[in-house]
């Protein structure tokens, strides 16, 4: 059924720390590795070794440069992993004509039942985040499952019962938990660090949160007496001064 549940018992999702992500793409690779051989159809590649290669990924890492405004602060490079945000008001679910896309009442995970998907692509149109990709080999829509086949999988060690991207992240930039429970570790982290929604104006109410980069340190004044010292001469003298004046006249 492609109508959304009024309330989900849990809001399982990810918290992604933009301050600690180093942009190594390990989450991308482990995601592709796990999901190509587990839930649903494999994540195919087209022309993988040719000139014009492309393929299906459920998680991609962008990198953005931010130039702080005002003072002459240095530009910052921010690595930005992006996957399905498992929105509370998921527009991808309600547009689905077949009922293949659905949001689980028990934990809020948004999934695609691939047997029902006709590959119309409308859910990918409706997603502002580019979280859904139509697999070119299988003709069905692929998206992050929040590793639904890991998190409840009792055949795995308990430590592995988290999404593979979280398990693999070497810098601890990804966290998994119930964002509907305000006492959960992830909810506390979001409260502490000012976790934010992407494109809040789109009204999707994403469950996944992003932790903004912490403010950068300012370069300290290295000598308390420095401001009281004589300013260094600004005007050039001697040969350089002559050269400066001469070139100025030309």
């Amino acid at each position, binding site marked *: 059924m492609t109508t959304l549940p009024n309330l989900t018992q849990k809001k399982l999702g990810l918290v992604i720390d933009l301050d600690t992500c180093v942009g190594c793409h390990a989450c991308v690779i482990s995601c592709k590795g796990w999901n190509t051989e587990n839930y649903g159809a494999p994540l195919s590649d087209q022309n993988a070794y040719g000139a014009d290669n492309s393929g299906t990924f459920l998680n*991609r890492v962008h990198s953005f440069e931010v130039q702080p405004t005002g003072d002459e602060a240095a530009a*910052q*490079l921010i690595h930005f992993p*992006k996957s399905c945000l498992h929105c509370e008001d998921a527009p991808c679910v309600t547009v689905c004509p*077949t009922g293949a896309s659905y949001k689980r009442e028990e934990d809020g995970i948004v999934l695609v039942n691939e047997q029902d998907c006709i590959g119309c692509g409308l859910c990918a149109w*409706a997603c502002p985040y580019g979280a859904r990709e139509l697999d070119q080999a299988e003709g069905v829509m692929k998206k992050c499952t929040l590793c639904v086949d890991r998190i409840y999988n009792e055949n795995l060690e308990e430590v592995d019962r988290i999404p593979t991207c979280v398990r693999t992240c070497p810098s601890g930039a990804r966290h998994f938990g119930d964002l509907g429970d305000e006492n959960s570790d992830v909810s506390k982290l979001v409260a502490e660090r000012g976790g934010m929604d992407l494109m809040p104006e789109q009204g999707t109410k994403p469950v996944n949160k992003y932790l903004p980069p912490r403010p950068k340190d300012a370069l300290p004044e290295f000598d308390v007496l420095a401001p009281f010292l004589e300013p260094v001469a600004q005007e050039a003298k001697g040969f350089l001064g002559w050269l400066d004046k001469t070139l100025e006249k030309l």
Partner: protein
Amino acid sequence: MHPAPSVIIFTTFSGLGFGLLFWLGIDPTPPTGWVAFVFWLIAYAMAVGGLLSSTFHLGRPERFLKAFSQWRSSWLSREGIAAVTTLVAMGLYGLGLVFFGTAWQHLGWLGALGALATVFTTSMIYAQMKTIPRWNMNLTPAMFMSYALAGGALLKGNITMAIVLLAIAGVVQVFTWVMGDKAFENSGTTMATATGLGNIGSVRAFEPPHTGTNYLMREFIHVVGRKHSQKLRIIGVALGIIIPVVLLLLPIGHWIALIAVASHIAGVLASRWLFFAEAEHVVGLYYGKR
């Protein structure tokens, strides 16, 4: 957005076909016999041909029957139901007119209502997309409806009605472009809101996630041909609206009518190509392409 030929053909021809079915359905003195047969043949060729064309962009077209199930939430599902209801009602209505020379008028009215519903639901598939601000306007259904009614009147040969409706469609189309050009900016979605990094400073895409392309970029970040958009708009309005109106004002014959129809179809195809090619999806912001 990627201007896929299948959806351009689908929206253009099914719009015309269902537009014609609307006028056939409400006609108080409908044609009978061979004349009715030809009208119904044209309407069904366009409406059904358009619908079939739309299945070419499906990844799994063989499962299309499932698409009728989610009418509670999905405009695409509603469109499917409206289209089939219309085609069945108008098919029976046509049967009566062609073979029995009788007008089962209630079926005609039901079919006409269904035809309007079909075009409206088609337009809402696009208009509902908050992710594509250029489409996310009331003008989108108005544009689809006015083109379908004008094209249908033109095919039906309701000359006065066609002239008036073509003029209306032209005005709506121009407004759609004028408002659409400002829509992305007015939507408030920017790289700052997309990344949440706007309060640090100005955000620029530094490095994409991969060196090649992907499904998202092919489907949503189409920029080819935008530079010709002004010319194509003029061509679209000239062929789709102005030439047919001028031809209809001349003493009309079948050949002139045929030229008017051909010109109208070419114009609508050009406008519909622009409808897709010019539409900017907000996901492009993550790729620095907006």
